[in-house]
């Protein structure tokens, strides 16, 4: 059978330094300039996803500050509508497509999931690297657009016909549509990598019902990405066809349908909210368990809730379209569905309370951020109940009330857990613990600033201020509340500066973390910080939901994987029995080159349809290079040989 006898937990294993040496040599990434681009290890790509996404978070934050500055008084002449429309479109598009999903789903997922599974690398590492470069390509296209005065100006949702050829000449809307293609291909690629890793690379013994909640959530999110993203790619693809080759999918004058676009967009758009929120909930479940010093209360209800959210999340999209005048019966259906999705989220909240209640709470920095999440997301969730009601939604839809609501949900559901997660896994990524005092300053500054800005926006919405206006009349008496809202930006900016200082400082001079500074149960804490290139000296086995808490000291480990090639273990998707040994394809420059050629084709097709036939041969060449057979046969070997 697969699991052999040697018994020593691998982090204390000094006798096997020879093996560690050989593994390090086998799994080494090449250095140098090209080596950087051919890296396919998930920890490196994961951190790159996070750092890149965070840079775009800061850029989009600067845009937000510019908007708050413009709205600080009525009839402000700081910027005109042309610039303002580009800025709010860029803010939304960047935050959703270049920050929230790449950070919460791709970044954390790619970094943490293989470690939590006990795997040596992510499944399809080259596809993973390709996804990263394609994401960067999309980000550069979008921001290159803004810097050349071609920034999209039709809103992050780009409703037709405003974004169609008749009302948006030029290439602004094209850039938006093509950016969607980039980022969605990237998200789909990572979804496939993560789902496969979770289903096929779990450590032996980690059956489905022993999977950490975080892995469950990542699996559900990956499935949601696979089902939701095609809808928006169809929407933006048809829009591009309308714009570039003169089709009439969305042109009402020729029998096209403007509502079709909205259905396609929101069929993606609402699941997207859960694609952003569930990774946050996953982090919170992990932290609540760790810092309450007990197993999470209600593992099964939480998992069922997450899966239920994954399904119900696809049946609420019409609540973005109540004002289009749909029949009352269908609106009532979507009201019911939108209210129903509160239940699984409520179950998770109740289980978190119960876990803390019957645990021993250690309010370390990540947990402080988790409490920030409880407060902020709760407010956002409750105002969301209001928005599910058709008559109320018809009043506050497209006003600052909705702006307040979704910032409470998204900043609460993604940004607070993100900071919690960064402070939590920072020791794993860097080997050092982030400074706790600076972290608390960061928390309180950001928390106070956030609430000043966004709580105020509820009042503006109820006073009738619509979204996406570049200015307003003094007669509306919105200026005092706008001034108050804008003042919160100062606190948030200060908080973020403290965070950046903390990261830079702690990376070099923070307290040494050791393998498991928080005493958490996940497999990622059994290896050194930062993890070695091969992750695990021996693939571990697990016998419970919380491996490091429950496994006896003589827990078996997997032996028999070769150390001269990059061999990984494939296990059964349900009960995680070893099935095959498979070779990890190793570093390669081809995913980067493929991303380059694909990006060039995508960008070119903004300008001429000929870019597709001209761009295809280079793409094919790079794909051939990527898929070229290696010297020795990687034929799967049965795990019986282990």
């Amino acid at each position: 059978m697969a699991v052999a006898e040697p018994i020593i937990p691998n982090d204390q294993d000094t006798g096997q330094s020879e093996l560690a040496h050989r593994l390090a040599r086998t799994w080494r990434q090449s250095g140098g300039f090209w080596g950087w681009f051919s890296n396919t290890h998930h920890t490196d790509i994961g951190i790159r996803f996070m750092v890149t996404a965070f840079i775009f978070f800061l850029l989009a934050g600067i845009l937000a500050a510019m908007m708050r500055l413009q709205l600080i008084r009525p009839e402000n002449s700081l910027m005109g509508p042309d610039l303002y429309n580009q800025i709010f479109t860029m803010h939304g598009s960047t935050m959703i497509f270049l920050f929230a999903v790449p950070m919460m789903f791709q970044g954390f997922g790619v970094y943490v999931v293989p470690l939590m599974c006990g795997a040596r690398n992510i499944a399809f590492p080259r596809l993973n690297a390709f996804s990263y470069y394609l994401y960067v390509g999309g980000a550069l296209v979008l921001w290159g657009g803004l810097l050349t005065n071609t920034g999209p100006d039709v809103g992050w949702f780009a409703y037709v016909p405003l974004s169609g050829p008749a009302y948006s000449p030029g290439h602004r809307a094209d850039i938006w549509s093509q950016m969607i293609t980039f980022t969605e291909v990237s998200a789909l690629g990572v979804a496939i990598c993560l789902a496969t890793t979770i289903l096929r690379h779990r450590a032996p013994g980690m059956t489905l019902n022993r999977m950490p909640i975080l892995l469950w959530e990542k699996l559900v999110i990956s499935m949601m990405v696979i089902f939701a993203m095609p809808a928006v790619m169809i929407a933006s693809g048809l829009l591009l066809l309308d714009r570039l080759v003169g089709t009439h999918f969305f042109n009402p004058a020729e029998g096209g349908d403007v509502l079709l676009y909205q259905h396609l967009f929101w069929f993606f758009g609402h699941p997207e909210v859960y694609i952003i929120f569930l990774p946050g909930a996953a982090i919170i479940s992990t932290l609540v368990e760790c810092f309450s010093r007990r197993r999470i209360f209600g593992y099964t209800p939480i998992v069922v809730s997450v899966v239920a959210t994954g399904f119900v999340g696809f049946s609420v999209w019409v609540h973005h379209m109540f004002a289009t005048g749909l029949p009352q019966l269908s609106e009532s259906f979507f009201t019911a569905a939108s209210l129903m999705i509160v239940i699984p989220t409520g179950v998770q909240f109740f289980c978190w309370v119960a876990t803390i209640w019957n645990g021993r709470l250690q309010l370390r920095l990540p947990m402080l951020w988790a409490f920030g999440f409880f407060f902020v997301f709760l407010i956002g969730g409750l105002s969301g109940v209001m928005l599910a009601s058709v008559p109320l939604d018809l009043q506050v839809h497209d006003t600052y009330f909705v702006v307040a609501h979704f910032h409470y949900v998204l900043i609460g559901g993604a940004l607070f857990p993100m900071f919690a997660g960064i402070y939590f896994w920072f020791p794993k990524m860097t080997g050092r613990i982030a400074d706790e005092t600076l972290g608390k300053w960061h928390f309180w500054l950001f928390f106070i600033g956030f609430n000043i800005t966004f709580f105020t926006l509820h009042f503006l919405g109820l006073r009738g201020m619509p979204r996406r206006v570049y200015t307003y009349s003094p007669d509306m008496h919105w200026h005092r509340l706008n001034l108050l809202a804008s003042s919160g930006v100062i606190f948030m900016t200060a908080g973020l500066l403290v965070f950046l200082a903390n990261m830079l400082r702690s990376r070099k001079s923070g307290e040494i973390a050791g393998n498991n500074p928080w005493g958490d149960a996940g497999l990622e804490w059994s290896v050194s910080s930062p993890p070695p290139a091969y992750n695990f000296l021996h693939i571990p086995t697990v016998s419970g939901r919380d491996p490091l808490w429950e496994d006896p000291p003589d827990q078996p480990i997997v032996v028999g994987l070769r150390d001269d090639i990059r061999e990984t273990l494939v296990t059964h998707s349900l009960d995680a029995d070893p099935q095959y040994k498979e070779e990890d394809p190793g570093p390669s420059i081809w995913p980067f080159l493929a991303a380059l050629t694909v990006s060039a084709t995508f960008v070119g097709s903004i300008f001429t349809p000929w870019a597709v036939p001209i761009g295809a041969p280079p793409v094919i060449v790079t794909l051939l290079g990527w898929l070229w057979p290696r010297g020795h046969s990687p034929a799967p070997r049965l795990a019986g040989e282990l």
Partner: protein
Amino acid sequence: MKLLELSFIPARLVIQAMPLNPGSHLVLHAGAPQGRNIEWLYWSIFWVLVAVFVLMIAAFTRAGARSHVSAWKPLPIIENDEADRRAAWAVWSAVGVTVITLFVILVISVVTGKRVEGLTSKNPVTVQITGHQWWWEVTYPNSQADQTITTANEIHIPINTRVVVLTNSADVIHSFWAPSITGKRDLLPGYSSAFWFEVDKAGIYHGQCAEFCGLQHAHMGFSVIAEPVDKFDAWKRQQLKPASDPSDAEASRGRDVFLTHACLMCHTIRGTDAGSRFGPDLTHVASRNMIAAETLPNTAGALGGWIVDPQRIKPGTKMTPNALAPDDLQALIVYLRSLE
């Protein structure tokens, strides 16, 4: 508790910053039956949610306070199955209460929705509203063409009468919203839909486009002028008349300016040769309070500034600048201001 206290600071600041202004653009001080129904729904749900919020924050605070230990190093893991059984009972009760609460919210929401949307009146006033970038075309259709009124941005209605609004858009999606009256309705190109509202207090209700519609989405206001039936009828009779002939030489010259410059390419003045429907109908422009979709007051100065350089006031508007000679401009303003 620290968390809770701090959370009140922004709320307090907001309250200090908000003496309610008397403007009629408020969701929560509605001047119409539908708006008041929605306001009732708002407060009903609001207080339920406040209760939920307080309970949840109390639960988290209590849970944190009772289980908090100030140790720095990770403590050993504890298990307490007995306590967990009690917690399970509490959690499932909370889920049950949640389901019931949500169901109540669903019922009152659907009931309010029916009250707000169902149309029962037999003799409504019908108004056709067409969204344009960036103004509102308002038509009172009638089977006889000469009994049809066309105006812009200001919607006169009689009080205590159902008003059926037929929606349409000439270009992109707009959304018709007067917060003090009722919820919004999108104007979709290619779709005609209808909804109704009613106002029972005379007054001027402000409204604004609520769906992003391009450069001048911010300056796409309108107003609903609700007045007693007799005043409404008088207004209607006045609007049905063609434009009055100029009464003096300057106004007459103004009309010539209008008909010999770019004005007539886009605007209609009934009773003259100007008949284009690209821009607002100006037959009775002097009877309106505001111009440029509620952007400027309808004064001689504002009108002159608008005619000469509309792009400065509403950058991107479809109206082109008009470099008129000062005399011509003066005459044109006099003429337009005579179009009561």
